[in-house]
């Protein structure tokens, strides 16, 4: 009898709740600028664990932007922070703009052409645009580089930011409010529906799914939306060619190689921006690079592109390597062809 009374009492409450949810769904109209996460949440996808924690005092997206782009920001009370890293800022290795024409693929050549068309550098790190839409970080072979340090970061963006601050940029540990600020800024870079290159009928399909949503989780539509972007950036470390004279055995395209030299090498090495080793467009420089290409040392581009260099005490600025996803073997041969052409 008691159970029946409770059920009778709860029934109108449930009806009221369901109608509120239904009203909310009906009112939610998607458009090109609708954030992807907002759409997913309306289809029952739980919020990610890197939602901003508003209770952290002194954090702001503006400060996060400062930290990422210049490495310094205002402290919550007064004064400025110490530089996060003496050697790098986030944009040394990561873009903060869309860098792939198709976010569902990791295609280095398409990215290079897109970077060239949009005035972006072509970098080792994955763009931070849409980072909050990813669910895994330091993927694949980064475990080989950072060992067990990557394990806790794989599904925790806050920890990934901290690892990047300390290991990748060889800087100081960030405080909670700084990490929260960076997170806030990253949320301003979240994916919108327009970034997914959806067709008109995709919008209709998603809108219909939202309107029809009755609770639970609409796996089908969520998976469909997520098929338009990568939830994690794949990373495969590959080796330099065994025979550095013959290289990877492909014909290089110097025009493409010039793009790599200008958008990638020069990004860090021009006027010693992030590196102590300066590169320019002088014949003398190209001759040096050409003569060292075939060597089995860090003077060889094959070697530094695939293995990078390591931070050392007193010289912590290092070069991160290019994974297969960030520079293909063909592109390395293109770079070699350009350097050889310019050295003549």
């Amino acid at each position, binding site marked *: 009898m008691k159970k029946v009374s409770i059920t009778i009492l709860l029934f109108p409450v449930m009806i009221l709740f369901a109608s509120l949810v239904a009203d909310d769904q009906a009112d939610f109209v998607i458009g090109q600028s609708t954030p992807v996460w907002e759409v997913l949440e309306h289809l029952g996808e739980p919020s990610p664990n890197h939602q901003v924690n508003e209770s952290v005092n002194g954090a702001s997206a503006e400060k996060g932007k400062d930290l990422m782009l210049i490495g310094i920001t205002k402290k919550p009370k007064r004064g400025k922070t110490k530089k996060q890293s003496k050697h790098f800022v986030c944009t040394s290795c990561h873009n903060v703009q869309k860098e792939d024409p198709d976010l569902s693929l990791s295609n280095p050549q398409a990215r290079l052409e897109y970077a060239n068309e949009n005035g972006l550098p072509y970098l080792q790190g994955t763009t931070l645009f849409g980072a909050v839409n990813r669910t895994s970080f330091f993927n694949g072979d980064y475990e080989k580089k950072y060992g067990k340090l990557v394990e806790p970061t794989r599904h925790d963006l806050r920890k990934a930011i901290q690892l990047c601050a300390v290991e990748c940029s060889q800087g100081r540990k960030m405080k909670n409010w700084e990490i929260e600020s960076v997170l806030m800024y990253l949320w301003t870079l979240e994916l919108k529906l327009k970034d997914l290159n959806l067709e008109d009928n995709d919008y209709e399909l998603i809108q219909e799914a939202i309107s029809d949503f009755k609770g639970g989780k609409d796996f089908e539509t969520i998976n469909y939306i997520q098929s338009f972007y990568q939830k994690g950036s794949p990373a495969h470390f590959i080796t330099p060619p065994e025979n550095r004279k013959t290289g990877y055995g492909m014909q290089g395209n110097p025009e493409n190689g010039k793009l790599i030299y200008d958008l990638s090498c020069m990004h860090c090495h021009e006027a010693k921006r992030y590196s102590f080793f*300066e590169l320019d467009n002088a014949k003398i420089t190209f001759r040096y690079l050409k003569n060292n290409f075939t060597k089995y040392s860090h003077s060889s581009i094959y070697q530094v592109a695939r293995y990078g260099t390591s931070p050392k005490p007193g010289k912590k600025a290092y070069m991160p390597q290019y994974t297969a996803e960030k520079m293909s073997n063909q592109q390395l041969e293109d770079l070699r062809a350009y350097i050889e052409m310019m050295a003549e």
Partner: protein
Amino acid sequence: MIRLAIFVILFCFTTFLFSQDFTQQTFKDTKVINTHTVETVVKRKLDVRIGHRFGDIGGGNGGWQTFYGLENAADILFGVEYGITDNITVGLSRTKGAGPLKKLINTSLKYRFFRQKNDDSMPVSMTAYGLWSISTMKQDTSNSEVLNNFPEFSHRSMYCVQILIARKFSDAFSFQVIPSYVHRNLVPFNDDNGLFSLGFAMRIQISKVFGIIVDATFPFSELRTRENGYYPPIGIGLEIDTGGHIFQINFTNARGIMETDYIPYTQSDWSEGQFRLGFTISRTFNL
């Protein structure tokens, strides 16, 4: 009126400084051998420098008895230079000193106000350099004939101002002209306190790593003649850039390293074998 003039000058300077496509690396280092270059230390970087000048290779003070000067030290420098901005560098160093005033503490300020541009709309780079050297020698009150008698504290000071004007003609060749003025508050009897000079420097880049560097400074003074035992300081050297480190191995007749030392006091003659091996190691750190 003065404010307007200052504004116009600053406006012109900043216009040039904020323009892009500057010519890079007119010289690889902030010094050639003896002379400074138009180059400044990049913002927030610290350049730690160690310089050494051995004794005479030949002549009366050289040869086997001093193992060709390697057993003597004419001058030694320990110092740092820091980039406040990409165009303003401050420096602090200690040198042993090779002139009559020794144990020098040197502070310097360098400001690059024009930069050569690739399109030649600015054909040269120009940098102003100021140096203040203070001798920390012990005061010798027993002998009023020596410079370190120091009747007044200001007598310990020496100054140098220079305008460095350089052009990178090609990737392999750069040339620099250096009008200078050195002022010593206390000088030997019959010497002039003020001394003008004109210096020249050049770099011939052989490869990405190796370059040949040469510099010379000619003081304008009737007192500084061969007959009076003064010679223009001339240096020639090899510069090695390993990326992060610049090594310079050089030969020069100048004994002193600082401008306040080698411009007024070079009395060693190349033709008598009175030149020495020297080296400078420079290492840049991010701060």
